[in-house]
C-alpha cells in the first residue's frame, strides 16, 4: 500500500522548483528525510497519478511592527509573492492562524487583500491573536469562517484527501495550553466516522497538537483524544503554526509538522526567558520566515513537505 517508490521519485522530480529546504517524504506516517539533491538523483519514472500541492502559510501577524520586523505586512506580501511564483500552482492555501496581531478590521482587511492576489482558495483556522475582538473571535469568523461550526472548525475533501480544520485557541483554561473541548471532539468523531481508514487525512490547527514545550504552553491539553480518533488512519499529517519555527515528529502513522511564521521567529524551546519575538538582525530575518509547500500523490498516500524561507 505504501511501497510505490517510483511515484515518490516522480513527484520529487516535480518538486525541483521548490529550491532550497529540507524535504520530508511521509511513508504511511513513517517519515524518510533526505536532502533534495539526493532525492533528485534517484531514478525517475513518471507518476501514475497527477500530484497536487497546497501551501501552508502561518502566523502572518498583520499589524506587528516591532523588532525584529517593523512591517509584518511587507513580509507577508513577500511570502505570498513566493507562492505566486511557484511554477506548479497549488490547489489552495491553508493559513494556520494568527492572521492578525490584534484582530483589528484593518489587519484582517490587509491579510485578505494580500491573499486575494493569488486568486486561490484559502482555508483558515484562527490563532489566539484572531480572537481579540470584543466578541471573542466573531470578527474573524464572520470573515474567514463562513460555514464553520462552533469556534470555527470544519472539514472538506479534496481529491481523495480528507482535510480537517480544528480550533484550539478558544475558551482556554487557566494554567492550561491549547484546548479543543468536548463539543469539537464529539464533532471530530462523527466527522471521521464517515471515512475509511485508507483515506489520507490532513489536520490543521494553530497550536501544535503535541506538546512541544509545556512551560511556554506549546501544546494542546486534550490533543490525545483527537489523536486517538485519528489512530486508525493509514496516513495522517498534522500541520500547525504558533511557535514560529519548524519542528517535526512522527508517532505511529501520524506525522506532525509546524511551519515558520511570515512575521517573526520565536526562540527554540527553553532557550530564552520567554517565548517573545526573537530579535534577530535585519539581514537574518528573511532566512527565518517562510512558507511550507505540501505535495500529495494519489495512490501512495504520502505527503511531501518542503519548507522554504523568504531568503531562498
Amino acid at each position, binding site marked *: 500500500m505504501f511501497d510505490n517508490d517510483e511515484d515518490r521519485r516522480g513527484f520529487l522530480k516535480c518538486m525541483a522548483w521548490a529550491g532550497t529546504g529540507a524535504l520530508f517524504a511521509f511513508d504511511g506516517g513513517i517519515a524518510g528525510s533526505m536532502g533534495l539533491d539526493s532525492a533528485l538523483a534517484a531514478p525517475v519514472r513518471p507518476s501514475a497519478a497527477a500530484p497536487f500541492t497546497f501551501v501552508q502559510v502561518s502566523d502572518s501577524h498583520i499589524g506587528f511592527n516591532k523588532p525584529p520586523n517593523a512591517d509584518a505586512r511587507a513580509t507577508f506580501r513577500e511570502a505570498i509573492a513566493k507562492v505566486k511564483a511557484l511554477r506548479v500552482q497549488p490547489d489552495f492555501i491553508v493559513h494556520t492562524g494568527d492572521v492578525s496581531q490584534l484582530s483589528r478590521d484593518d489587519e484582517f482587511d490587509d491579510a485578505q487583500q494580500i491573499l486575494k492576489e493569488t486568486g486561490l482558495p484559502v482555508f483558515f483556522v484562527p490563532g489566539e*491573536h484572531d480572537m481579540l475582538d470584543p466578541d471573542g473571535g466573531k470578527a474573524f469568523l464572520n470573515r474567514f469562517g463562513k460555514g464553520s461550526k462552533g469556534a470555527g472548525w470544519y472539514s472538506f475533501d479534496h481529491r481523495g484527501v480528507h482535510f480537517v480544520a480544528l480550533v484550539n485557541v478558544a475558551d482556554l483554561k487557566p*494554567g492550561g495550553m491549547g484546548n479543543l473541548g468536548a463539543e469539537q471532539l464529539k464533532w471530530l468523531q462523527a466527522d471521521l466516522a464517515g471515512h475509511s481508514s485508507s483515506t489520507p487525512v490532513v489536520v490543521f490547527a494553530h497550536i501544535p497538537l503535541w506538546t512541544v514545550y509545556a512551560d511556554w504552553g506549546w501544546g494542546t491539553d486534550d490533543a490525545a483524544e483527537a489523536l486517538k480518533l485519528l489512530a486508525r488512519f493509514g496516513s495522517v499529517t498534522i500541520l500547525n503554526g504558533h511557535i514560529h519555527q519548524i519542528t517535526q515528529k512522527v508517532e505511529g502513522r501520524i506525522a506532525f509538522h509546524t511551519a515558520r511564521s511570515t512575521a517573526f521567529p520565536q526562540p527554540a524551546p527553553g532557550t530564552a526567558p520567554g517565548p517573545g519575538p526573537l530579535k534577530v538582525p535585519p539581514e537574518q530575518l528573511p532566512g527565518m520566515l517562510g512558507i511550507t509547500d505540501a505535495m500529495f500523490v494519489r495512490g501512495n498516500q504520502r505527503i511531501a513537505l518542503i519548507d522554504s524561507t523568504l531568503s531562498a
Partner: protein
Amino acid sequence: MTRAFKILSFQIAVLAAGGVMMTTVATMTHAAAPPAAAVQIDNFTFEAPTLTVRPGTTVTWTNQDDIPHTVVSKDGAFKSKVLDTGDKFSFTFAKAGQFGYYCSLHPHMAGTVIVKG
C-alpha cells in the same frame, strides 16, 4: 537691567508659590489616595506571580511585552481588554480574599492577588 531683574524675581516668586501649591496638592492627594500596587507583565510572566495587598488596593498591570496579553480573573471578578505593549489595566480589590487570574491568550501565564486586612 533693573527691570529685567525685577521680572526674574517675580518669576522666581511665582515658581516658588507654584511649587508650594503643587507640594500641598501632592500631599493632599497622597493622604486621600487609596493604596496602590503594580504588576509588570514581562517575558510572558506576571511579576510578581503572588501579590499580597490590603482591602481597597488598586492593582495596576502593565504589559511590557511585544506581544499582547490579557488579565482575566478565574472567577469572573475582573477581565481586561487586550493589552498591547505599554497598555495598563487596573482593578480595585475591595474585599479580602484570594483572586487567581491568568492571560486568556497564553493561559500558562497565571498569577494570584491575596487581599487581607
